[in-house]
């Protein structure tokens, strides 16, 4: 059923990620561990075409972009991991003609059933975040499952029951939890750091949130280069100003 479940009730579980853009260092560990887990688990095969050749094409469910914001000395590099945001109003689910794409009522995870997906790709058109990638070999759509085969997996140690990307992050920039519970650690983090959802203009209400990079302290800014001649009236300063003028001719 591709109609969305009613998730308006108070206390509705909304599992998702909170990604800290302030601490992400762009190491790609989350992307690699995602690929590693999901090409063996329920998303397998997460196929690659020509992986070692000149024109490789592969399915990855998590991509880490690098952006630069601001100008000159104020400019700041920001690494930006991008994966499925498990939207509350997921258009990728409602456009699906077969019911293969669905949002779970119990925890809000958006999944694709590979046995009923016809590979029409319409869900990938409906997603503004580029979260869905088509598996050429299997002929079905793939997406982040929030590692549904890890987070409820009794065979794993409790501390391992988190998405692979969260487990792999060396800087603790990725947090997993229930964003429907206002008292959860992730919800508090979003409140404290003014976390935001992507493209609210489009109205898909993403569950995943991003924590903005902190403003740099003025004191932390690199000192400007001292001028060659200096500004004082001493003999050395005047000598260097004279030398500067002579050498500038």
């Amino acid at each position, binding site marked *: *059923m*591709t*109609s*969305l479940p009613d998730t308006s009730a108070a206390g509705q579980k909304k599992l998702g990620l909170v990604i800290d*853009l302030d601490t992400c260092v*762009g190491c790609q560990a989350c992307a690699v561990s995602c690929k590693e887990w999901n090409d063996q688990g329920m998303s397998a095969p997460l196929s690659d075409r020509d992986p070692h050749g000149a*024109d490789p*094409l*592969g*399915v*990855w469910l998590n*991509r880490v*972009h*690098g*952006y*630069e*914001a*601001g*100008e000159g000395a*104020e400019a700041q*590099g*920001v690494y*930006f991991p*991008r994966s499925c945001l498990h939207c509350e109003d997921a*258009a990728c689910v*409602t*456009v*699906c*003609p*077969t*019911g*293969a794409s669905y949002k779970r009522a119990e925890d809000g995870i958006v999944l694709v059933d590979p046995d*009923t*997906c*016809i*590979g*029409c*790709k*319409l869900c*990938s*058109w*409906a*997603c*503004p*975040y*580029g979260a*869905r*990638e*088509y598996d050429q070999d*299997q*002929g*079905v759509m793939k997406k982040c499952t929030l590692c549904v085969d890890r987070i409820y997996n009794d065979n794993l140690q409790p501390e391992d029951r988190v998405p692979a990307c969260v487990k792999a992050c060396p800087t603790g920039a990725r947090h997993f939890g229930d964003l429907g519970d206002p008292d959860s650690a992730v919800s508090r983090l979003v409140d404290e750091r003014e976390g935001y959802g*992507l*493209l609210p*203009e*489009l*109205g898909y209400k993403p569950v995943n949130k*991003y924590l*903005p*990079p902190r403003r740099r302290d003025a004191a932390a800014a690199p000192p400007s280069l001292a001028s060659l001649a200096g500004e004082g009236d001493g003999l050395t300063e005047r000598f260097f100003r004279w030398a500067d003028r002579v050498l500038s001719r």
Partner: protein
Amino acid sequence: MHPAYSVILFTSLSGAGYGLLGLLGLTAGTTTSLPGPGTLIAAFLLAFLLITGGLLASTFHLGHPERAWRALSQWRSSWLSREGVLALATYPPALIFAWLAITDHDGGLLRVLGLVTAFLCAITVVATAMIYASLATIRQWHQPLVVPVYLAFALASGATLLLGFAVLGGQMQPGHLILAGGTLVLALLLKTLYWRAIDQEPLDLDMGKATGLGHLGRVRQWEGAHTAENFVQQEMGYRIGRRHAGKLRRLITFGLALALLCVLLTAVLPGSLGAFGVLLALAFTLAATLVERWLFFAEAQHVVTLYYGAERA
């Protein structure tokens, strides 16, 4: 957006088929001037061939065409599913209507079934257009004029086909000429208004809004997420159409204008020359429709391109 040939063929061919079938239904429902049985057989055959061929073509780009029947299940939420259901629902009344019309049955049932067929044809084309118009992620598709344009092109190609059958069957009436000429003008007018609408709408989304980093200053891509192209870029990052949009638009306008000219020539030329005119009109209409459909995809920009370096969308 990457223009998949199967989808371009599907929307243009089935559009022409639904246009022809719908106009035959409308003619039977509101007048007594259906063409004779011989011409009707040929017209119905071509209409069903175009519709069925188009629907089959639409399954070519699927990863699992053998599961296509599953697409009929989610009509409550999905326009693609609704389109499939409506396309199938059109067949039974249309086939009975065609049989009654060919066997020269003249009665209330023919009229009712003609109108029902025409209505189903129209809403099937509307559902096809809504697959695109309902996507808020693609500004050039999420437009009120998309549905009227799809309807107008289906009508124009259907009316030109109907005129062709009427001329070749020696049963042309002024109504056929007015219908073909009028719908061609309508298609050209609506498409021109559509182009003006998408050109005038401000592109108010940028990389700063997409990443939520706009408050830090101007945002630009500094390091790509991957070194080779991925599915998202191949499917959603197609740019050739936008680069040549101006020329292609003039080509479509020129094609529709030539088709209109040929329809006018058909009106004044006698006998076999008229038949030549109508065949030319058909060729120009079909060519213009195919280019129009290709450009509809190729000049559409998906919001996700903002994450991949596009400055605005």
